[in-house]
């Protein structure tokens, strides 16, 4: 399956999804709406064979939270980066933990550090920080009691 074929397949099934090729690599950027995320991921996993969720992460764009799903196919050795975005505070998105078990912990981490709520996750609770921690530290405006303001040189 070439990259072009994958793009055709995805856009055939999901007309609203934008796909772009990343130069020099066997990789694709797939930009989608957050409501279609589970259907799109299920399609990519089951029909296109992207069976390995490398990681899942968020980026704080100040006006929204971007969520990236790095997917990899062992068979075709290609990467698809599914990108979607949610509201910055109190953002909610469907969980993909049912598709990849790896998503379980990665979604917990994203919840822990960014505060994104993954609906339908089997046990969404903090993973790296303690349970009574207040706030989500990787947001750009996070102010914790232990945050040290760096000296200006």
């Amino acid at each position, binding site marked *: 399956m070439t990259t072009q074929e994958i793009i055709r397949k995805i856009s055939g099934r999901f007309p609203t999804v934008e796909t772009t090729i990343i130069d020099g690599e066997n990789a694709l950027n797939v930009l989608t709406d957050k409501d279609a995320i589970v259907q799109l991921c299920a399609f990519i996993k089951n029909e296109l064979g992207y069976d390995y969720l490398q990681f899942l992460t968020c980026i704080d764009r100040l006006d929204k939270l971007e969520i990236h799903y790095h997917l990899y196919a062992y068979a075709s050795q290609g990467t698809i980066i599914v990108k979607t975005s949610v509201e910055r505070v109190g953002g909610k998105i469907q969980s993909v933990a049912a598709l*990849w078990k790896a998503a379980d912990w990665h979604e917990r981490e994203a919840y822990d550090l960014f505060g994104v709520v993954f609906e339908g996750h089997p046990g969404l609770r903090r993973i790296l920080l303690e349970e009574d921690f207040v706030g989500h530290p990787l947001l750009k405006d996070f102010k914790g009691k232990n945050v040290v303001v760096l000296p200006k040189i």
Partner: protein
Amino acid sequence: MKEDSAQDFITEEYLLNMGPQHPATHGVLRLVLRMDGENILDLVPDLGYLHRGFEKIAENRTYKQFLPFTDRLDYLAGMFNNHVYCLAVEKLLKITVPPRAEYIRVLVSELNRIASHLVWFGPFAMDLGAITPFLYAFREREMIIDLLESVSGQRLTYSYFRIGGVAQDLPDDFIVQAKAFCEYFKPKVDEYDTLLSKNIIFIKRTKNIGVLPKELAIDYGCSGPVLRGSGVAYDVRKNEPYSVYKDLSFDIPVGTIGDSLDRYNVRIEEMRQSVRIIEQVLEKLPGGEIMAAVPKVVKPAPGEAYARIEAPRGDFGFFIVSDGSDKPYRLKIRAPSFSNLSVLPELVKGLKISDVLAVFGSIDIVLGDVDR
């Protein structure tokens, strides 16, 4: 006597806290075990005791400043952390590293891989009760650490790589010493085989314990020896060659059923393959520059880059988003141990408490890597 005498004999489940201070958790990890006598019903890992927030630190440091922090991620394989970080930044900057630097990078990385696997081998043997292999492993590791110290100046936190190359050229006698080490090390691996791998008690302890089927391993996002132990011949060095691995010949050891013994054998064989790679690199090492032309202030164009390598514990990646300033806008570390650890509850169900260590040790996690 009562009719239902079975009711007189009441057994209870209980919770056992393994860690955060426990000799076998290899750091500060807490495993909450739900037990029925000696049998495990359920296991919940509780992590985060070593969380230092490197991803947040990175957002407040310049690209050059963040490099020493990467040493502290997987602290047993500092070279790999340096390497993948440099690869990611170089990808953002579109820099090509001179060939000599690439070869040096591979050389020290593979030495570090052996050292890292030795630190897995020793404690794994110790988890299973054999203490002597631990000291033998550390004896050999000491020689590697000395070598790496003579190159970089530190024993664990190397900070040897730079964006665009390496910090310094190899010292004069390094090649001789590295060759001597390879000669010294090869028979030692066979000795480990005699001491441990062939030992009937060891085989009994690890065979068919913690079987990880192929599909499950992929589903959980396992990588590295854990994945290869389950029979997936996937190695980033081979499948998506970075650096100069394209020019080097080596094999990928693969297990069959994915039990603890398979994962063990994969790592032991990887040490042999690393020696092979080192010998080739020492033969091929070209002359020339060790640093590419890198601007004094690293300011990549806005964009994002994901680089990954095959670290001793698996698929290790850095995802960097740049906004055009001298600091990363967002830096995500894809830690192999994190995904590898998540499969542990699946593996130990129904086993005995002693088997937890046989499984946990064979997964080989580093808490600095899991918690970041």
